[in-house]
């Protein structure tokens, strides 16, 4: 009796959870495109999606401005636009220095440390800070006693403190603190060594049948000079067979050429005895004879012992590792840069991407099997990353495509859509009459055929000035971080994938444009001229929409946004170099990178999808309607700052 009384008190104090009979399953499929989905449904390839559309509804879901994943998922998480949650782009900048940074999180080092010989002992702990503002829908559900599982939600690293079970997704770094740095070891003298895009190439020599090498870990902030922590490993190469044995300090594995290792645990010593960090990585033996080529994945945080917070509660990460074994924790796990740089070929990259998908499908099965009440949100990344990499196999106009590629890989995306259909089939098999199902994507997809170098255009039009004697660069020589810009004569600059900022007096360190009439006139002129830009190769408009942040956004962070949000036409995107402040000689360029599809464009051209087992009543639902929908399903009223309404209610 006393125990029952104690339990009743605990529940009334919010320490326990009242049983919730309602169930809501939300499957988030990054980058699922309505046009491709319709095409595959019409071809009979997606029976479960077709059945769901017939039973409940299928409509386009209006995406965010701009339609970038961190922005879009933040709209979904908070029910607010970027003015409310403060995420405007993958990349933001510090107006005082113009230094770019990832918009969603920041790592802060310890504030105080004690020098001791060659060591530096931290006296306070560092912190990883989530930069997204606004309350997530699962925090609100938590306040109302509704249990949630949120698996790999983007823009939620480090995961917000909550009693919900959450695991972080896009935005989670590797052990080096980057968003993915692979290592590539080769004795091929023609492969340039050193830092490369998204990785590092290490020259090695094969002597006496063995290769000695180092795997690098995080910068060791506990040592003077902050050297990079590293561990030694040896590869023993069979003299005749295409086989090698890789020996790490704590494990070894034998691989045949063309084979992936299982996840291997690695440990980097930061402070002898006192401080080590652990990670996990996979090795791929690309070539043994005649040359030696070994790829090592980015060192992921180990979910069994994460060096940075990955989940709430902390034990959820360990529990998943116990159930599933080691798995990718890096926010963007598909190694697109290794493919773009040629360190993995199409087949090898697809093998790696499939490993990521298989892990996600295993986690989906696990969570689905124990989903009893409340909310389960599950995120799949495969369609997004592989639409980025294999659009060139679908679209014969693509400059990076060719006949052979089309013959070999034209069905890559179709196969992945079919995988999503199978996953949906598992969910449909478990639906009961108290479960609502939502399947949605954050945006659709389009070809990325031509680059528009916004900063080059601004420079040629006289809005951005170079220093005396400086000239724009070509390709990678275009430079980053606005090298050689004369800010005393520059009125506007592009940064990030869709942002155009004015060089505002009082905000930018060397700002010259005054707020008010001068800024308004400049914005009007830029908008007019950008909408008039035509691609000389086709006479097509490169930009079909320019949104002014002051009109598109509402909320306390709207003033931090770029003044203008550039909406590129289908086929166009911001050029590779311009995103980080490079100024090239050419305004337009063919996109020759395997990264051949994109969505960072006019938001009206790349809507996402929304399907449900219940009738959809809203006439034009958008991402900001999802949080209010989820709350209302559990009888929780939406907070006043949420903009949208339930998709199951008729639009006013």
């Amino acid at each position, binding site marked *: 009796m006393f125990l029952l009384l104690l339990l009743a008190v605990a529940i009334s104090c919010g320490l326990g959870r009242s049983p919730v009979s309602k169930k809501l399953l939300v499957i988030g499929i990054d980058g699922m495109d309505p046009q491709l989905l319709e095409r595959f449904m019409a071809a009979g390839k997606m029976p479960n999606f077709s059945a769901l559309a017939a039973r409940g509804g299928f409509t386009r879901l209006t995406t965010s401005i701009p339609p970038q994943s961190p922005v879009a998922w933040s709209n979904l998480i908070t029910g607010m636009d970027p003015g409310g949650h403060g995420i405007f782009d*993958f*990349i933001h900048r510090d107006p005082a220095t113009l*230094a*770019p*940074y*990832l918009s969603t999180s920041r790592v802060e080092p310890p504030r105080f440390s004690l020098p001791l010989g060659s060591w530096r002992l931290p006296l306070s702990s560092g912190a990883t800070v989530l930069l997204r503002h606004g309350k997530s829908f699962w925090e609100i559900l938590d306040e109302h006693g509704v249990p949630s599982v949120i698996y790999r939600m983007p823009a939620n690293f480090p995961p917000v403190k909550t009693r919900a079970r959450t695991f972080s997704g896009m935005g989670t*770094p*590797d052990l080096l*603190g*980057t*968003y*993915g*740095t692979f290592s590539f070891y080769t004795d091929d003298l023609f492969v340039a*060594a*050193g*830092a490369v*895009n*998204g990785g*590092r*190439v*290490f*020259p090695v020599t094969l002597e006496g049948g063995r290769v000695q090498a180092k795997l*690098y870990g995080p*910068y060791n902030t506990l040592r003077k000079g*902050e*050297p*990079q922590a*590293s561990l030694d490993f040896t590869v023993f190469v069979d003299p005749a067979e295409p086989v090698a044995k890789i020996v790490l300090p704590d494990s070894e594995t034998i691989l045949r050429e063309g084979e992936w290792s299982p996840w291997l645990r690695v440990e980097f010593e930061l402070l002898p005895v006192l401080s080590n960090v652990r990670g996990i990585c996979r090795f791929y033996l690309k070539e043994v004879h005649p040359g030696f080529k070994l790829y090592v994945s*980015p060192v992921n945080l180990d979910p069994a012992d994460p060096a940075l917070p990955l989940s709430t509660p902390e034990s959820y990460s360990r529990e998943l590792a116990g159930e599933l074994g080691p798995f990718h924790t*890096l926010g*963007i796990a598909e190694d*697109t*840069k290794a493919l*773009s740089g040629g360190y993995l070929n199409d087949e090898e990259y697809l093998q790696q991407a499939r490993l990521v998908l298989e892990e996600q499908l295993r986690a989906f099965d696990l969570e689905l099997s124990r989903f009893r009440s409340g909310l389960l949100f599950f995120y799949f990344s495969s369609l997004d*990353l592989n639409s*980025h990499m294999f659009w060139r196999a679908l679209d014969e106009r693509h400059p990076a495509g060719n006949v052979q590629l089309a013959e070999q890989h034209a069905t890559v995306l179709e196969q992945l859509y079919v995988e999503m259909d199978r996953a949906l089939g598992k969910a449909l098999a478990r639906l009961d009459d108290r479960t609502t199902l939502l399947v949605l994507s954050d945006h659709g997809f389009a070809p990325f055929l031509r680059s528009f170098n916004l900063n080059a255009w601004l420079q040629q039009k006289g809005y951005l000035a170079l220093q005396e004697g400086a000239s724009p660069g070509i390709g*990678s020589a275009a430079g*980053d*971080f606005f090298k050689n810009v004369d800010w005393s004569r520059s009125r506007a600059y592009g940064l990030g*994938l869709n942002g155009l900022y004015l060089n505002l007096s009082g905000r930018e360190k060397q700002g010259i444009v005054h707020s008010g009439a001068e800024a308004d006139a400049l914005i009007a002129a830029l908008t007019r001229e950008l909408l008039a830009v035509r691609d000389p190769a086709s006479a097509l408009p490169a930009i079909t929409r320019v949104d002014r942040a002051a009109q598109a956004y509402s909320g306390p962070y709207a003033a931090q946004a770029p003044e203008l949000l550039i909406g590129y036409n289908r086929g166009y995107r911001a050029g*590779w*170099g311009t*995103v*980080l402040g490079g100024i090239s000689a050419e305004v337009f360029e063919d996109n020759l*990178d395997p*990264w051949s599809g994109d969505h*960072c464009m006019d938001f009206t051209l790349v809507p996402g999808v929304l399907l449900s087992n219940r009738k959809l009543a809203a006439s034009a639902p958008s991402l900001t309607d999802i949080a209010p929908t989820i709350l209302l399903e559990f009888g929780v009223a939406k907070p006043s700052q949420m903009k949208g309404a339930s998709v199951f209610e008729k639009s006013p």
Partner: protein
Amino acid sequence: MFGNRIKIDDELFEKIKQCAAKAGYASPEEFIQHVLEKEVARLSGGDAPRDPEEEVKKRLQGLGYIE
């Protein structure tokens, strides 16, 4: 005692002397040593020195959206 000797073209050496003086190096030798150390570290893929701009770029490159 005399260390290793490397022959450098006279015209290039003049430029090196000017650059070394302009950049505040104590001698052209110190400048050459520094430049070569940096390049050797880069090419050997060894311990990369921390460069704030490069670090930001490396952090972001894994996103896939930039080069």
